[in-house]
């Protein structure tokens, strides 16, 4: 049976926000290996444009941050057509970094990247990972900064052009979230003003609040001020 390529809902032009370029200069990166995500396609609901990720069945979720300046991070996708299978998308993530210590960046490969664009969090390389395709630093070029590029491998495309990352799943009780992962989850929740957030990041070996960043603590306060609740280890 052929894969379904029929259109099943309206494609909506979002006129509510003026389109702008760029993403926030922070990316959250997790290893592709060991990911336990499932895709949940949402059409005609709250976010008609994006495909939502149904979250975390993994006991541990370890995100690490890549910080950069202004427009130094870039993400995107490109269509790959095929005569013998359903069309796919090549995802790409690039960064120009003033990076201290090369070791981690030099060895890092096979990643999933989450970035923030406006008030949405987008995910790249979810299904098949992003793999390093270029890395260079020339002392006399580009202020001596490191340029690094990760992309989908040939014949390892993604089904969709981008994924919408949502923290709708709130129960991380008994898991082993790092402080960085907690920061990401709280950051997403704080960016959506809702009294319905009930985030449980207690028990297990979830990072205690004393190890969180100041931003994570501030985001927790925002969630509570918005009417939500947070349960955490201390």
């Amino acid at each position, binding site marked *: 049976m052929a894969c379904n390529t029929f259109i099943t809902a309206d494609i909506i032009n979002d006129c509510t926000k003026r389109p702008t370029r760029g993403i926030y200069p922070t990316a959250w990166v997790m290893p592709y290996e060991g990911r336990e995500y499932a895709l949940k396609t949402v059409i005609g609901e709250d976010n008609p444009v994006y495909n939502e990720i149904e979250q975390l069945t993994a006991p541990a979720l370890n995100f690490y941050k890549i910080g950069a300046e202004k427009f130094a991070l870039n993400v995107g996708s490109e269509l790959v057509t095929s005569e013998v299978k359903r069309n796919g998308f090549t995802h790409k993530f690039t960064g120009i970094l003033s990076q201290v210590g090369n070791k981690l960046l030099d060895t890092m490969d096979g990643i999933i990247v989450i970035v923030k664009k406006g008030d949405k969090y987008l995910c790249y390389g979810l299904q098949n990972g992003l793999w390093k395709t270029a890395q260079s630093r020339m002392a006399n070029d580009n202020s001596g900064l490191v340029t690094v590029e990760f992309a989908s491998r040939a014949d390892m495309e993604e089904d969709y052009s981008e994924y919408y990352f949502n923290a709708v799943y709130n129960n991380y009780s008994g898991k082993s979230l790092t402080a960085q992962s907690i920061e990401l989850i709280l950051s997403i929740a704080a960016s959506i003003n809702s009294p319905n957030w009930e985030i449980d990041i207690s028990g297990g070996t979830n990072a205690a*609040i004393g190890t969180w960043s100041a931003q994570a603590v501030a985001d927790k306060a925002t969630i*509570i001020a918005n*009417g939500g*609740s*947070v*349960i*955490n*280890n*201390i």
Partner: protein
Amino acid sequence: MIQINYKDRSFIIEQMTEEDKEILKAEKPELYEKHFKDSKELKNKKKK
């Protein structure tokens, strides 16, 4: 230890008084059940 925060409330599960538990039960019954109902049931089972 586990901390619960909502509105202006801040409870530490392991240090909650009976009065605190009543407040939690009234305001956030689902959280109360999650953290206290199981342990009560467990105690009752052990008694039997």
